[in-house]
């Protein structure tokens, strides 16, 4: 399998309290050294809770924000080293679908102009063929050609997300980065959009980086999964391995927290709460493993050293000194009788 996107040692620092006289600015690493690969045609799910840095990482990868350090290669070329014009040209090949279809579409542009613009800018079709291409894009995402004459506010949330996907597809990208693309949608609409993304991905052999907090959805659609916590990837594995034999205690905590639809013993508060005490999710940790305040396996070493992803060349990697045992800790959900 060939690598399409590769990130190495990506760091993104934000400074707080900047500009206040007499106050030292504190640097906060939203992304604290991430290595990540997306292969051609695969779906990689990037999972994490709010504040894990997954959205910031995606924006670094898309070059929407400038990372503080690190290397980002797309199809072998270092995006950070490219001159502006070359980067603009390269952008055609990776596109983003945003969470909120309400705020990510220009309210003053008719849908037709919105979809035609990238085609024109990147000179993907002769002028005379642009209208036909717009109609084709609308059809791809399940909207009628008449949508081209309408404005974003005339569409429902689900339809707007279809438009967001059509716009991303307009440049004929090889990689689609979708940041929580269905979280803001109604439950009955989510499945439509997920099915659409998967169908388009198969049809065009797109690589898909799917960012979400919804693990049931991840299990449903991902080839591989990377779990992020506090700016770092703490576990990375093929789909089946991650769900059957998670190695990082945080991954297991996440899996255990997923609500079950089976009402086996309704009303009894089925989910196991996180072992971390209430509020521990916000504890500030300096040095060592960031998960240790919530972890029941934490040792003195976890306070001293930051665990790296091991084994270095493995398909299933985890950043933990005391990983779960795939035999004895097997499976996470013995909830059903």
């Amino acid at each position, binding site marked *: 399998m060939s690598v399409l996107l590769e990130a190495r040692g990506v760091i993104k620092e934000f400074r707080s309290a900047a500009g206040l006289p007499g106050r030292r600015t504190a640097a906060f690493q939203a992304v604290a050294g991430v290595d990540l690969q997306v292969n051609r045609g695969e779906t990689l799910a990037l999972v994490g809770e709010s504040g894990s840095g997954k959205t910031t990482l995606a924006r670094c990868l898309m070059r929407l924000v400038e990372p503080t350090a690190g290397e980002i290669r797309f199809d072998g070329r270092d995006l950070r080293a490219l001159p502006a014009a070359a980067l603009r040209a390269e952008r055609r090949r990776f596109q983003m679908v945003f969470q909120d279809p309400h705020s990510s579409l220009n309210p003053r542009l008719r849908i037709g102009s919105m979809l035609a613009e990238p085609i024109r800018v990147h000179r993907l079709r002769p002028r005379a063929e642009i209208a036909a291409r717009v109609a084709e894009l609308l059809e791809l995402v399940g909207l009628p050609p008449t949508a081209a004459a309408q404005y974003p506010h005339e569409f429902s949330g689900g339809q707007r997300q279809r438009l967001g996907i059509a716009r991303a597809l307009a440049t004929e990208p090889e990689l689609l980065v979708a940041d929580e693309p269905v979280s803001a949608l109604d439950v009955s609409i989510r499945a439509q959009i997920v099915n659409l993304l998967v169908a388009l991905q198969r049809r065009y052999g797109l690589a898909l980086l799917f960012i979400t907090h919804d693990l049931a959805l991840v299990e449903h659609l991902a080839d591989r999964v990377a779990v992020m916590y506090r700016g770092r990837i703490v576990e990375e594995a093929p789909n089946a391995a991650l769900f059957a034999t998670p190695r990082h205690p945080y991954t297991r905590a996440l899996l255990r927290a997923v609500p079950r639809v089976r009402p086996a013993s309704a*009303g009894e508060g089925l989910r196991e709460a996180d072992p971390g005490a209430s509020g521990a999710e916000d504890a500030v940790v300096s040095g060592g493993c960031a998960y240790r305040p919530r972890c029941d396996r934490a040792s003195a070493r976890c306070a001293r050293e930051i665990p790296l992803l091991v084994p270095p060349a493995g398909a299933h990697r985890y950043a933990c000194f005391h990983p779960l045992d795939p035999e004895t800790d097997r499976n996470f*959900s013995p909830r059903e009788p």
Partner: protein
Amino acid sequence: MTALEVDSLTVAFPGPAAPVEVVRQASLRLEAGEMVGLVGESGSGKSLTALALLGLLPAGARVGGGSIRLAGRELLGLPERELRAVRGGAIGLVFQEPLSALNPVLTIGRQVREALRAHRSLSREQVATETSELLDLVALPVRLLESHPHQLSGGQRQRVLLMLALAGRPSFLLADEPTTALDVTVQAQILALLADLRRELGLGILLITHDLAVVAESCSRAYVMYAGEIVEEGPVPVLFSTPGHPYTAGLLAALPRLGEPGRRGELPAVPGQVADPRRLPEGCAFHPRCARAVERCRREHPLPVSLGPGHRSRCFFAEQVRAGR
């Protein structure tokens, strides 16, 4: 036994021609000590139903009919002063976004004290005692009383909000999407806390949510709303294993489930768009999205059909849907 009873509640907004009915003939009942789900998507009317219970409808909206009784006493038409005593008194409220519900410039302790004094005249000692009891109930450390809302995590803020809601010693709690803005691990903690409060205090909790999984694991009964109407109600185990309305069945089928990854790429989706209350279809509001719809569904508005103890569905084909035929 006290109960909160809503009977044939209708809520409407003024429209260009006729009023737009956003809640139509909704009837529901909540007993002390039970946690009941009110499930629906955007525009289903679930939140407006809850706001109507408290006389907190947004400007323009008004109750067009029906009744709301708390332990037999009619709340509709009560003067605002008496309604205020009910709100935060007998009925507590918890919203989705705890940050906007808290006063950013006051310490948590101050806000708790104010909530305690709002409905009862308490001495300084009583306030102190009740504050620490409340802290115990929601499992927050004393030191948080000195904090301001922005210094707390999302889960802690939701606990603070629960404290404020409990300060008036309510017998009912309306919780509108209380876990939606939270991460899954924190969500689990808050739901466990709600379950504890239900048990320990005998609270009746109406959990308003779009999340079927949250209902499945925390509620004993549920109402499903679509386009302003309760289309199905029933005990949760029955509702989730043998739904009697195509909408409920469609929602359940469309959810990806952990441990069942077999259907990759093809989630059975409910087609079409969520109904717009301004342009409701004739007959059954769900018919444009329903695979079973026949001529009758396009013409005639279905009435609730009983499918078993406490299980009702507004569908002409309720029996067949339940049997999975």
